[in-house]
């Protein structure tokens, strides 16, 4: 009878509970369930009671959440700071993740792309560790290897696209017919190349990129079968490649490679790019061993061309990402540190609050809340903070991502850009939970222990020993991480400074550059040397006549725009080179005023002049590196050399100029030779000038339209591409480093700020806690100076502790950064010293305010205060 009564009472209670839950708009399932419990069979109440306990956790979390919201609303300052700190940490991590995802994680647009590799000739002894293979070597690799399912080749080139629209220069690649099948991509419209088209004298057919199709041909589906004009020759478009495929770099057009027997026999002309697919089960290392073996065989068989020539296999992803990988990992590590510091900071704040909330938790423990329940409550609070921080972080990421697009290498840019997507949101959710756990675990443990062991015996104020020791450790950790970031930022900043102040060998300021590549391989007037010469003469004449133009010159390649373009040569009077010891120098054909225009200093002899024409004696200018290497301890002026090929005439050196950084800002100038572009002997084929440099007064870009008009007056079908100030060309080489430095610098500043706030918070809190004690001391005769000093000393001890740990960690970690540094040691004492100084300064400022407040405590009020 009594039992029935209890059951009935419980049931009405549950009924009310269900109604309230529905009214509160809780989930249907829950309300439905509660209702079922309420109206269930009367004999099933025992089971219903069991159900209560099953649903309890969810009800409890909902209660905990409501309670957490209320608690946080009561201390909006704390909540705001915590959410902002987490939002910065999480948002920065999300933004960097978007780049890492775009560059390193998202699959390449090729079938089973993980098995694709690029194979290079290893020509390290000549300064080209990754050299473009010669056709005959490629053919031997292809036939002899057992590690690749197939190998394909292509050649990079530029084409003038004319007819149907304004003249336009596009990158294009003649490819072997098996390239796209090997990559696993096929045209979305039309068809790919057939083997018969990849033969000398085969039909002129072309594949075009999705981008070019959309942009120039407005996505016209009848494009397949239409004719287009490339370098004044007619090609039939047979297909359009899928969106995003611009293989290998920015190619918009593909043609059959169609090498003839003469080309297939070449071993001394290196111009192919070779791609291959690993057989199933074959690793990169196995492929490398096989290729090294084949390269050795070739060395034995063809000593004249293949001595010292190896082969290097690089995974396609690494090839496309290039040297950005190291920078990206550095940035990722940096942003991870920021999140750790934000978490440590929040943990410290929560611990401080925990000390003040012991009584509250003790009461709850007394009323029957278990230890796990108390810990959950504390964790729910940090989860709520992290969720809010994460939501705000998404907005931060949305704002930051456009700035990060420059971190994606151009090789990937067409199809992979950083963006907000599901993987990013999933990452952010995981990071938020991690942040909540990292920052909430310690306080939750302290609180739940307080609720139990401490119970009501302890008050709200004293006894903060345990948690404040934890807070000190957290501050030391934060300072240590901030030191690591500061040192990293310092090293990278110093590297960037060194790189942007490296003597380039030329003066890029005030120079406008552009590319006007003349079609020479096909049936155009420019096949004829004199027609080309006439083009250069007339363009230079018109451009130089423009008001404000100081001088103008043509060259084969501007510095930093081409990693190769070299020729082998023979020095007059020197013993013939040993097999594999090829004399090789960068080869540039230039107009008379070019060196003067970009500001290369003449060291000896004379510059080229208009008189160095077709009928005049053949002359050349060499750089100091070439002079030192081939005419050591001699005057190179008047000496002669010729190209290492049949029927090459001799060239007489008339001038020596400074070394120019041609291959990279961080690479010393290589041996280089210049030939006057009006003498055909040094200005053949590939070395035909294409880049125009113009030195002007004032802003170079303001001359762009006038120069373009001048060029089109000479030939209105001539594309003009890459118009930019030379400064921009150089800035472009540093842009990814520049962004990495700015990012890591921003992370360092952020971590410094967070660590300083953490330190300030701890000291201010301690001073408040010890207000009475300080008051008593001052009443007993302590001078304000002594109090100030005591607080400052406490702050500085923490800073010094963090500094020691951070410096040791930096010393160990910065070696990993070595590949990103340039003429800066990973343990650069200036950088370490500067980081320490900055930290001590900021630490002192953060300690000063609470110290001053402590020193200005009035003993009388302090004693009355409690």
């Amino acid at each position, binding site marked *: 009878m009594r039992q029935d009564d209890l059951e009935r*009472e*419980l049931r009405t209670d549950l009924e009310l509970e269900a109604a309230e839950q529905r009214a509160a708009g809780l989930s249907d399932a829950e309300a439905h369930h509660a209702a079922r419990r309420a109206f269930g069979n009367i004999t099933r109440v025992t089971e219903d009671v069991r159900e209560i306990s099953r649903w309890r956790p969810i009800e409890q979390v909902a209660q905990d959440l409501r309670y957490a919201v209320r608690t946080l609303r009561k201390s909006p300052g704390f909540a705001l700071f915590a959410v902002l700190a987490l939002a910065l940490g999480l948002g920065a991590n999300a933004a960097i993740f978007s780049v890492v995802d775009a560059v390193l994680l998202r699959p390449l647009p090729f079938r089973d792309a993980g098995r694709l590799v690029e194979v290079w000739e290893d020509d390290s002894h000549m300064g080209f560790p990754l050299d473009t293979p010669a056709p005959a070597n490629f053919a031997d690799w292809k036939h002899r290897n057992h590690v690749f399912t197939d190998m394909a080749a292509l050649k990079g080139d530029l084409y003038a696209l004319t007819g149907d629209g304004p003249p336009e220069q596009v990158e294009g690649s003649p490819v072997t017919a098996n390239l796209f099948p090997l990559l696993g991509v096929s045209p979305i419209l039309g068809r790919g190349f057939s083997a018969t088209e990849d033969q000398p004298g085969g039909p002129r057919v072309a594949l075009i990129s999705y981008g070019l199709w959309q942009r120039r041909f407005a996505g016209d589906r009848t494009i397949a079968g239409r004719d287009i004009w490339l370098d004044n020759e007619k090609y039939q478009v047979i297909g359009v490649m899928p969106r995003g495929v611009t293989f290998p770099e920015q190619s918009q057009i593909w043609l059959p490679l169609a090498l003839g027997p003469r080309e297939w026999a070449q071993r001394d002309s290196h111009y192919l790019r070779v791609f291959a697919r690993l057989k199933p089960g074959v690793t990169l290392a196995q492929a490398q061993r096989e290729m090294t073996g084949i390269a050795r065989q070739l060395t034995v068989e063809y000593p004249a061309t293949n001595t010292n020539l190896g082969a290097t296999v690089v995974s396609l992803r690494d090839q496309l990402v290039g040297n950005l990988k190291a920078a990206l990992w550095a940035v990722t590590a940096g942003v991870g540190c920021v999140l750790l510091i934000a978490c440590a900071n929040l943990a410290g704040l929560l611990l401080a609050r925990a000390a003040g909330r012991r009584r509250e938790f003790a009461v709850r423990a*007394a009323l029957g809340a278990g230890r796990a329940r108390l810990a959950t409550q504390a964790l729910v609070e940090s989860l709520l903070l992290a969720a809010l921080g994460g939501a705000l972080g998404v907005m931060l990421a949305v704002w930051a991502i456009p700035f990060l697009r420059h971190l994606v290498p151009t090789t990937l840019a067409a199809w992979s850009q950083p963006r907000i997507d599901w993987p990013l949101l999933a990452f952010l959710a995981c990071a938020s939970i991690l942040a909540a756990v990292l920052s909430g675990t310690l306080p939750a443990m302290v609180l739940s222990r307080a609720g139990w062991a401490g119970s009501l*015996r302890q008050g709200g104020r*004293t006894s903060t020993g345990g948690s404040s020791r934890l807070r000190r450790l957290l501050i030391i950790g934060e300072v240590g991480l901030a030191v690591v970031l500061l040192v990293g930022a310092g090293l990278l900043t110093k590297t960037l400074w060194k790189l942007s102040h490296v003597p380039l060998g030329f003066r890029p300021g005030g120079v406008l550059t552009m590319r006007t590549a003349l079609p020479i391989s096909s049936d155009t007037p420019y096949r004829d040397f004199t027609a080309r010469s006439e083009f250069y003469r007339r363009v230079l004449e018109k451009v130089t006549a423009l008001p404000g133009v100081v001088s103008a010159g043509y060259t084969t390649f501007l510095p930093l725009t081409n990693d190769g373009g070299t020729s082998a040569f023979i020095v007059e009077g020197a013993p013939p080179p040993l097999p594999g010891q090829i004399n090789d120098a960068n080869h540039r054909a230039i107009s008379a005023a070019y060196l003067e225009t970009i500001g290369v200093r003449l060291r000896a002899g004379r510059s080229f002049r208009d008189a160095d024409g077709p009928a005049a004696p053949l002359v050349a200018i060499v750089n100091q590196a070439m002079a030192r290497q081939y005419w050591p301890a001699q005057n190179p002026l008047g000496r002669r050399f010729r190209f290492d090929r049949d029927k090459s005439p001799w060239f007489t050196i008339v001038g020596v100029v400074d070394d120019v950084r041609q291959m990279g800002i961080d690479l010393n100038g290589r041996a280089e030779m210049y030939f006057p572009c009006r003498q055909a002997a040094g200005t053949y084929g590939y070395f035909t000038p294409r880049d125009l440099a113009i030195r002007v007064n004032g802003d170079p870009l303001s001359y762009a339209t006038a120069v373009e008009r001048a060029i089109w007056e000479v030939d209105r079908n001539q594309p003009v591409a890459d118009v930019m100030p030379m400064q921009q060309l150089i800035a472009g080489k540093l842009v990814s480093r520049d962004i990495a430095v700015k990012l890591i610098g921003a992370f360092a500043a952020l971590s410094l700020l967070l660590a300083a706030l953490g330190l300030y918070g701890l000291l201010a809190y301690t001073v408040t806690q010890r207000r009475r004690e300080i008051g008593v001391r001052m009443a007993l005769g302590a001078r304000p100076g002594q109090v100030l000093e005591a607080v400052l000393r406490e702050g500085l001890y923490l800073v010094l502790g963090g500094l020691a740990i951070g410096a040791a960690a930096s010393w160990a970690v910065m070696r990993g950064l070595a590949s990103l540094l340039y003429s800066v040691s990973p343990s650069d004492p200036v950088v370490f010293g500067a980081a320490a100084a900055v930290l001590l300064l900021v630490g002192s400022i953060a300690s000063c305010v609470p110290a001053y407040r402590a020193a200005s405590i009035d003993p009388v009020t302090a004693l009355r205060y*409690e």
Partner: protein
Amino acid sequence: MPNESSGRIQLLQGTLDMLILRTLLFGPAHGHQIAKHIQRTTEDLLQVEHGSLYPALHRLERKGWISAKWEVAEKDAKREFKYYRLTPAGKKQLVAEESKWRKLTGAVARIMWPAEES
């Protein structure tokens, strides 16, 4: 009930009993109302579990400090609830409990924070 010698349970009983009696001072209420009132007044800090509430109510009823009766609800005449009322003995008990609690916390406070009293 079996051996409840742990300090927590003692405290729980004493405190919860006092809180229930204090709640019923406002007038009759059923179990759900009592639990909600304690929870709301303390802004969710004190959450009274069913497992504690109903045994406590029945214990108080046995001791004669409260009386219980199934009655029709004021707002919803179709439903019956078990309403609890404070008895005169319960009122006296509440006064006694309250002064005991005040003495206890005062004593604890004097030991813990001696200066505060000055």
